């Protein structure tokens, strides 16, 4: 679970998983996320996503861009399973996400960091990080708050790696924006996800902190975790994205390697 600042060129996991029936990636690539013809609308509202398809190979760092209201948050929630599509399919590592109503248990394989981070403010940094393990530890332990020693060690190590270990016992309420961001990443890492989804992840940070946090996110991606994040910050896209997807009004405007598109073009596409 360690965050490694490993080499830039990561080997994409070559696995023995059977090839997906509608695989879009290159031969030998495992597809972490496959979205096929997704249609979504909130009750009584026009479509938020319309025939949206996209594939993300395992280990890639994808940034989803788009004007406010273009459907980025909705897209992440569909991948996470917090929302269910009206039609179309979400596959993660080749298997379809089971539809068990919006209240059912969600897979711990996908970590989701919402825009405001969703931390429990009255709890400490360590307690929030430990929540990442709730899907994995026995229920009685979770209910009593008695996490196994190894899990606590995991959580502490994640906090240390993220440079927030010295604030383990502080309530999240009293932390700064950048510190909270680190706690949210720690919680996600303790979850040991294969996919990390992060919404408007760095929108409220100063430039220096943004760079530090993005280095950490890149480290996570380098350790083999597939990262899909939404953002507005074009300089962040320029420096850190491997792949760029641009949304407009719920349809895909662009889906290509970050190196193939100029920042000025992106800026033009993001205008509402």
């Amino acid at each position, binding site marked *: 679970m360690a965050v490694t600042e490993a080499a830039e060129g990561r080997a994409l996991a070559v696995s023995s998983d059977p090839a997906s029936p509608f695989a879009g990636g290159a031969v030998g690539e495992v597809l972490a996320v496959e979205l096929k013809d997704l249609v979504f609308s909130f009750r009584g509202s026009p479509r938020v996503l319309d025939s949206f398809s996209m594939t993300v190979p395992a280990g890639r760092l994808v940034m989803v861009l788009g004007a406010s209201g273009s459907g980025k948050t909705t897209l992440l929630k569909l991948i996470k399973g917090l929302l269910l599509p009206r039609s179309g399919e979400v596959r993660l590592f080749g298997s379809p996400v089971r539809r068990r109503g919006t209240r059912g248990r969600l897979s711990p394989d996908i970590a989701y960091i*919402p825009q405001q*981070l*969703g931390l429990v403010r009255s709890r400490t940094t360590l307690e929030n990080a430990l929540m990442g393990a*709730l899907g994995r530890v026995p*229920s009685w332990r979770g209910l009593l708050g008695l996490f196994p020693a190894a899990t606590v060690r995991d959580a502490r190590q994640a906090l240390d790696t993220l440079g927030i270990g010295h604030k383990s016992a502080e309530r999240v309420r009293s932390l700064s924006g950048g510190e909270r961001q680190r706690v949210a990443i720690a919680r996600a890492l303790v979850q040991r996800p294969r996919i990390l989804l992060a919404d408007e992840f760095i929108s409220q940070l100063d430039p220096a902190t943004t760079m530090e946090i993005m280095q950490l996110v890149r480290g996570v991606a380098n350790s083999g975790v597939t990262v899909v994040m939404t953002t507005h910050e074009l300089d962040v896209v320029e420096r850190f994205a491997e792949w760029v997807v641009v949304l407009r009004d719920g349809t895909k405007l662009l889906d290509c390697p970050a190196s193939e598109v100029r920042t000025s073009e992106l800026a033009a596409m993001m205008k509402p």
Partner: protein
Amino acid sequence: MKARLNVPLAVTLVLGAFLLVALNDVGLLDGARIQRGLDNAGIFFADMVPPDTSVLPEVSRALIETIQIAFAGTMVGFVVALPLALLASASLVPYWVTLPVKLLLAFVRTVPAILWAIVFVVMVGLGPAAGTLGVALYSVGYLGKIFYELFEGTDPEVMEAVRGVGCGRLQLARHAVLPEASNGIVSQLLFMFEYNVRASSIMGFVGAGGIGYYLLGYVQTLEYQSLLMAVLVTLAAVLVIDRASSFVRAALR
């Protein structure tokens, strides 16, 4: 020119007429009666002073019982209300569970504590046990509603983030809903206790324990000086508890 209906004036006239009829029917437009009432009030107040300190021991004991009824009733109500409120929270439990629980809480809350106390006097007999159960049941209804509204108001992003780790509903309640609501829970609990101290002080009217027994008794036996003592002691206790509780609640904010 067409005359237009002046709505505010019409409403005022109708309400005014109703008020006059009501005041007349309850006997408050009877000048002689009001005069008699004022005379009696004068005599009554003159008879009350000085307060009779000799009843202080029995009144104090009854006051302590009153506070015990309020405290035990509040805590028993709390312990029952908390799980019911979780079961009534739409963000945790499906509709077909929350609806009946919400209806149950609404029903329990519609009946005042003193009426529940009468029911319990019939069931468990005269005394503070009936009062405590009455207070507890009303507290279940009130706290249950306040709590489920608090729980349903949990920041949706916190719910989504914690659900996202793959935990079940109990864990979600334990780690997201309850901690987010903890200040509100304590604050409402203190408020409920304040309220219940006042409610418990009249439980004795129906034989359900506490200082109300003496308040009513002193009125019936015309011992107005003892009555004043009991009222003063009750008032002091209520004021002290209200102050302490609002202090703590302010500190929580």
